[in-house]
């Protein structure tokens, strides 16, 4: 019964539709998707394509209008599993200021585990573990609202991790950060993924998506492209048609092809394009 085991640890989205109240057109239409533990999936698409809506369906913040979302074996539409679903699939959002409630980092990270009704020593050890993992133990007694945007986002992620989730859904958590802070978040995601967590990363940055195991591109609420970063992001014309900013090296490779130089294999990084040049 291998498939049953897999569904216990993955998120399965089946023919999902979601329409916002008062709206006519569905924001998500007919999405089929399986998200696996220990893998990173980058979710791309132009503004209004349904990325955030789909992300919010993954942990039961939004419930399916039709179809289903099964997270770690739990139907998100079943009210009796709502709390457990939100525990297993944690979310971090774009603006950390809107997610912070505690007056110290310690309180902030303890907020989730406290709401689970865990005993005090367990809360304590979860806070320590989460801060350790995120690499911000030195911030324990600091006031979250006085931290930099990047540090605040790290605190928000620590809060999510303290729930011991199986999946972390990042809804553009890097988009307001500068490059250095973004890199730290991406390194952290990679560390969590290597530890077995499934990562879903909604982003505008194609360079971030090249690091993912798989890429899903939404267009008007439906999946318009999916595959490895190479399969989905290699062709600049296709990428543009999906409303995305193609990677510079793919555009240059495309121009090279017009000049009679077929760059072997789809290149996504400067390094790959240069190794073709010097080969």
């Amino acid at each position, binding site marked *: 019964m291998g498939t049953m085991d897999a569904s216990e640890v993955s998120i399965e989205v089946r023919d999902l539709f979601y329409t916002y109240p008062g709206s006519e057109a569905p924001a998500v239409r007919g999405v089929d998707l399986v998200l696996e533990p220990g893998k990173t999936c980058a979710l791309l698409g*132009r*503004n*209004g394509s349904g990325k955030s809506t789909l992300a919010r369906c993954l942990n039961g913040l939004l419930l399916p209008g039709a179809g289903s979302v099964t997270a770690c074996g739990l139907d998100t539409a079943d009210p009796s599993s709502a709390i457990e679903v939100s525990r297993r699939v944690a979310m971090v959002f774009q603006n950390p200021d809107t997610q912070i409630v505690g007056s110290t980092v310690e309180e902030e990270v303890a907020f989730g585990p406290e709401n689970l009704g865990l005993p005090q020593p367990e809360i304590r050890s979860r806070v320590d573990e989460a801060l350790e993992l995120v690499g911000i133990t030195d911030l324990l007694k600091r006031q979250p609202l006085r931290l*930099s*945007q*990047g540090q605040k986002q790290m605190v928000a992620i620590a809060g999510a991790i303290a729930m011991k989730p199986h999946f972390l859904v990042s809804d553009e958590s890097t*988009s*307001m*950060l*500068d*490059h*250095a*802070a973004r890199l730290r978040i991406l390194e952290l995601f990679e560390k969590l993924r290597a530890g077995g967590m499934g990562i879903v990363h909604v982003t*505008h940055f194609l*360079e971030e998506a090249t690091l993912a195991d798989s890429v899903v591109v939404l267009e008007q609420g439906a999946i318009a492209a999916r595959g490895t970063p190479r399969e989905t992001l290699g062709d600049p014309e296709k990428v*543009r048609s999906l*409303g*995305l*900013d193609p*990677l*510079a*090296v793919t*555009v*240059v*490779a*495309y*121009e*090279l092809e*017009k*000049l*009679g*130089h077929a760059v072997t294999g789809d290149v996504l990084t*400067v390094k790959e*394009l*240069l190794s073709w*040049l*010097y080969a």
Partner: protein
Amino acid sequence: MALRLRLEDVSFAYPLGGRDEAAALSGVSMSVEPGDVLCLAGPNGSGKSTLAQVCTGLLPPASGALYYGERRIEGRSALLQFRRSAVLLFQNPEDQLFADTVAKDIAFGPRNHGLRGDELTRRVRDSATLVGLPLDELEGRSPFSLSGGEQRRAALAGVLALEPEVLVLDEPFIGLDYEGRTGLAEALLRYRDEREASIVIVTHDLSNAWSLSTRFGLIADGKLLSLQTRDEMLAADADLTSLGMQLPQWGALARELVRAGISVADPADPRSLAGAMAKRKEAAGAGD
């Protein structure tokens, strides 16, 4: 007639009031020419938004001097006068849309400047056209019915209707998708060309301003570290990483080519990059 904006050894500090803020700007000297697109880039908290406000007369320098053309901007009335020539588009300007139609929203600024009648109508129509939101279709629509990218451009139109000679934008591309960013960049260049205006883009992310800007100023800890052309940026090998920034992929590729002694005519143009690489490849092939 567009004029040159010049800052001479400008410093600015926010009142401390119990918060641990340092001086926001110290000893900044720079100038912006008509037709310039100057990118001021720095990490979060570097003082670049403060600089944007000084460049538009919203914050008077604590020390140093601000010149517009030959005239030093000093004292309240000069500052108020200057603010008619230099305008700031704040971050997320669409949050400030409020009127019940797009046309009324665009008209709000120039109306406050005392414009009425045909001149007001012309400015609203012209600026809407410049940003690619033709009023024939949009005149009576609510700004809130527009997409995010269109809302941003409607907010820009409201500022362009003031016909500023210096237009400063704080993180204008943040939160926009590819089409939104491209549409905004095109609108900015159209305005620059039409009015010979100076444009200053303040950002923490070089990628969106890379192909658009004529010069780049790097800011950290309230100081302007350097002011360079794109070619100079590539050649100087600016240490962006320590500033928490990076060259966009275009720049990273161009820099590698420059380092390898491969000359690129226009490092922001993909054809130019491809041409230079093709030449190198062919030369290497011929040498085998």
